[in-house]
């Protein structure tokens, strides 16, 4: 547990106090922030640690949303639905990973991207189970039990809890033998093989870990918005944004991923509010600028300052 992680955890813990102060809309933003943080942190396991550019986040999210959503619609308890979605994603990812992760670089990127496309179309055509193009209604009636404001804070706290869980697990992995192995794989896979790292297993585990919490977030999300349709939950942006966030925060760093997620959403919200016609353009502009002038992400700012200091000395 180094200083950075400590700061990270305290910061995230403090966020939990939001319901005491925030009104529903702030809560909604908070919920989104936690949701994306979960995605970015999860992506970082496969993308940052293992160095495999995965675009499967949307696939996991959509899978979770529908797997859990269908259960909820059939009247299952939220906890049950979440657990089921998580397990499903984990298992699926383990199997899929074993084959997909033989691919490298762009090839893997595209394969993972295609997974989301296929799942979307399958969901779209499995009409009797998922409602297909008509979307799926999830009459999860928390509002009546906990009230209007109550619902907002309920889902915020749920998503926040999920983020905490994700962080604990991921940081643990980072410190573990698994994390070390993934680093080796990223830097030189054939050398890793040769010193006895079971690359296939490790990569699959990383892939599964990058999916399980995202899927859970998906279910929570489905319960939260009460209505989901394939184009929304399998949205390619769910794959791209976490990556941008991780890059923004600083590749390979969990802290960075969280920072990146919050920073990105903050920027997006401000831009979205203030520019009706050109907000996507402005957002794009910011992404470009950040990449060109802060290629190593937010966490590198500190390092840079240090270096400058060092030079001046």
């Amino acid at each position, binding site marked *: 547990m180094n200083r950075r992680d400590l700061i990270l955890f305290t910061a995230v813990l403090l966020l939990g106090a939001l319901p005491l102060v925030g009104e529903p809309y702030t809560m909604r933003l908070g919920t989104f922030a936690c949701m994306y943080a979960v995605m970015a942190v999860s992506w970082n396991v496969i993308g940052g640690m293992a160095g495999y550019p995965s675009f499967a986040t949307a696939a996991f999210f959509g899978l979770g949303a529908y797997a859990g959503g269908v259960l909820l619609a059939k009247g299952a308890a939220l906890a049950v639905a979440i657990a089921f979605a998580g397990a499903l994603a984990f298992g699926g990812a383990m199997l899929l990973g074993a084959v997909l992760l033989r691919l490298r670089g762009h090839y893997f990127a595209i394969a993972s991207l295609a997974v989301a496309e296929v799942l979307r179309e399958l969901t779209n055509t499995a009409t009797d189970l998922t409602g297909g193009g008509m979307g799926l209604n999830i009459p999860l009636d928390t509002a009546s039990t906990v009230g209007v404001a109550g619902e907002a804070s309920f889902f915020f706290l749920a998503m926040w809890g999920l983020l905490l869980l994700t962080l604990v697990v991921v940081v643990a992995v980072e410190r573990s033998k698994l994390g070390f192995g993934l680093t080796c794989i990223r830097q030189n896979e054939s050398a890793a093989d040769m010193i006895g790292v079971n690359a296939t297993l490790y990569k699959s585990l990383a892939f599964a870990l990058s999916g399980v919490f995202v899927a859970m977030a998906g279910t929570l999300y489905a319960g939260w918005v009460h209505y989901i349709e394939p184009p929304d939950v399998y949205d390619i942006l769910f794959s791209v944004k976490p990556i941008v966030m991780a890059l923004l925060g600083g590749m390979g760093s969990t802290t960075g991923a969280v920072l990146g997620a919050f920073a990105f959403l903050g920027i997006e919200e401000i831009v979205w509010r203030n520019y009706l016609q050109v907000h996507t353009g402005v957002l*794009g502009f910011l992404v470009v600028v950040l990449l060109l002038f802060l290629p190593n992400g937010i966490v590198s700012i500190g390092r840079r300052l240090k270096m400058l200091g060092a030079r001046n000395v």
Partner: protein
Amino acid sequence: MFTLQILVNGVVLGCLYACIAAGFSLVWGVLNVINLMHGSFIVLGSYLAWGAYNSLGFSPWVTLAIAAPLFYAAGYLVQRGLLNRVIAAPVLVTLTLTFGLDLILNNAMLLGFKADYRRLILEPALGTIQMGSVVVPVDRLVAMGFALVLTGALYLILRKSKVGRAIIAVRLDRDAATLMGVNVKSTYAAAFGLGAAMAGCAGVLLALIFPISPLSATPYLGKAFVVCVLGGLGSVPGAVVGGLVLGLVESFGAMAFGPEHAVTLSFALLILFLIFRPQGLLGKRGFE
């Protein structure tokens, strides 16, 4: 007869796909950059054709000659000015950069052209030709012809020309290429320019066939992805083969399983290919 019609449709469609993907495949395979702006480039090409026809009365065939150098220059500049700064960075950085740029480009198009759909309607219409029981629209045939010619030209440039070899050399080992006397920066830019030119020309051709709107960018991009994985990265003939395969699979798939599964099918195919033949049908090893 029925199957024959489907076959013809598939082949024609396939050539259009090839033309969509060729430039994308080039940039990806050679610069190792996934250019998410490709779709928007194509749409811009279509708008160019639309404008040139409706305001200047240029036929699309003429516009092609304008589009090629125009888009080449644009691509060259974008690469030289922006992408070059991060070309050495990890895959994801360049990818995200083009993502950001595409957001800008697409937003600009929305403002400039409005979201509504336009069509380029030739007067007189090119009509269709009947061969036995098979009907083929002329505009698609012509587009197909041009597509083949364009990709063929690109192929020759890459294989036979000095620039082409330099482009590949740079992609494989920048330092070594520098030692051969290759100017890395301008070579990258040239490759990206070529990709953009291909996209622009594709757009001009497709203007005859598909409704024109900034929203078409995404589907175009999606097709490009599939085609160039099926065909093989950086391999231009691969783009043609990949396009044909996709066209046929979609056509017959739609017939066999119903149209709503056609897309699913093509992506499933893509995954299978990635797993069992990642270098694509004609791809070269070493481009992984």
